[in-house]
């Protein structure tokens, strides 16, 4: 259950349908950046990325490094900065297939997988061009009120979910606190891989109060101990993000060469380009 981060990254094969949570949050970013680094370093290719429900820097690095074939997203944004530059460039050049969605559809699609049903209805959204562009969604007459149309969206069942959390125990139970949408992601995915700041000896599922915010190891396939594993994004209050490097990345990644330089100098120093 407890493995190294190298072993953990090796469990994500080329072409995997890989899900990651939004990497900007009031509690902790959730971004498994150390895994991202290993995926880039080992030249992972053809990933189909699902971001729940949006993402910024983490997805942009994977796209910039050529690991990603397709992305499904509610939006892509680096907060306070703008559209992630490698994403925008890859979309423009046609190298990246973008399945634009909307945030609640991603939550609902994962919710359908969580319930083991092939689709789920969702309120609203009708009239948006996202509906006419997504041929895998269906507008039907509401079976309970034929006068009304309703949007049905298919279940989203990623091969693998990966995220970084503050805390796990040796049994693989992972404390996620109030970021309960990460539990949704783990419920919907076939496999869940987690890096954590800290591993404790107590059984988190039987520790008062901690147990309330803990994802059971029923859903967790491997945990790696990886302090600082979200850098330059944050891993909660005790591991604040590096805003300066986020901004430096945003500026550098406007060009391919700037991206390559930032990756070598800041993200993977010592690794030959």
């Amino acid at each position, binding site marked *: 259950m407890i493995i190294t981060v190298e072993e953990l990254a090796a469990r994500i094969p080329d072409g995997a349908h890989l899900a990651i949570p939004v990497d900007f949050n009031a509690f902790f970013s959730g971004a498994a950046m150390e895994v991202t680094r290993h995926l880039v370093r080992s030249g992972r290719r053809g990933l189909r990325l699902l971001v729940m429900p*949006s993402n910024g820097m983490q997805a942009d690095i994977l796209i910039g490094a050529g690991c990603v074939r397709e992305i499904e997203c509610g939006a892509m944004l680096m907060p306070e900065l703008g559209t992630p530059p490698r994403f925008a460039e890859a979309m423009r050049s046609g190298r990246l297939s973008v399945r634009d969605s*909307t945030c609640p559809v991603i939550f609902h699609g994962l919710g359908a997988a969580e319930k083991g049903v092939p689709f789920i209805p969702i309120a609203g*959204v009708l*009239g948006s061009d996202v509906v006419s562009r997504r041929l895998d969604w269906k507008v039907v007459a509401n079976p309970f009120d034929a006068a009304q149309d309703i949007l049905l969206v298919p279940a989203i069942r990623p091969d693998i979910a990966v995220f970084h959390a503050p805390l796990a125990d040796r049994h693989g139970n992972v404390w996620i606190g109030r970021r*309960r949408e990460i539990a949704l992601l783990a419920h919907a995915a076939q496999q869940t891989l987690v890096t954590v700041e800290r591993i404790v000896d107590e059984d988190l599922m039987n520790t008062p109060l901690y147990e309330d915010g803990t994802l059971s190891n029923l859903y967790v396939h491997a945990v790696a101990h990886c302090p600082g594993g979200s850098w330059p994004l944050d891993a909660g209050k005790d591991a604040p993000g590096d805003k300066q490097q986020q901004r430096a990345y945003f500026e550098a990644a406007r060009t391919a060469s700037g991206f390559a330089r930032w990756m070598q100098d800041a993200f993977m120093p010592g690794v030959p380009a």
Partner: protein
Amino acid sequence: MSARPPEGDRAETEFEGTPLDVFLLPAAIARALAGCEHVAIGSDGALHAAGALLAQALHGKPRVTILGSRQQLFFSDGGRELFEAAAQGRIDGFLLGGGQIDGQGNLNFMGRGDYPALSVRWPGNFGSPYLYSVVRRVVLVREEHSPRVMVPRVDYISAAGTGGPRTRRTGGPAALVTGRCVFRFDAERQGFALQSVHGGNALHDIRRETGFDFHCDGDVAPQTPPATQPERELLRTRVADALAPTYPGFANKLREAP
């Protein structure tokens, strides 16, 4: 849900309108949110938050939930709870912008050009197609009021202003607050009606800078009332204090404004 204008626009040119009193838009937003019980603010929505918090300071409501702020976050169930609470009717006020806005109230957060071959890509839809349909009173806020934002027809409909006869909607646009004026949305006409213009703008300025048709009663539009003395005082103190943990820059701007 990010509420800030798409960055693509920043990269093009900065909007150069008449410099506005910093208190005018929060006061106008607060008025547009009148009657709301619970307003949610997308992340990066300092101006929106100021408006909602001013309404709260004045009237004791709405409750204000600022996404991305730990302190004012009422949700404990992750990101999806925002969307579920909205569909339950527990959020009756929201604020949205848009890189393009048209006269039917359609919003474009996706980009400029012929999707998917966009000339400029903005962040994307976020939750707009959904929240615009289910939140009773959505106030649109876009400081740049120019023909490239206020367009005859958006290039891509992220969120539709109105629904058809087979579309159940419990929400939609209520008003559009810009750097030049305030429109209210007229649900019967399915379009905007000019409510007031900010100091320095006349009706013909609005017509020139607006790419879509809008309704106007008479030939002269009333002036947008300036923020009152109590409103200015609240914005400088209680509202700025509440904003400070999440939006320190904007809080200081309010505190230091004349």
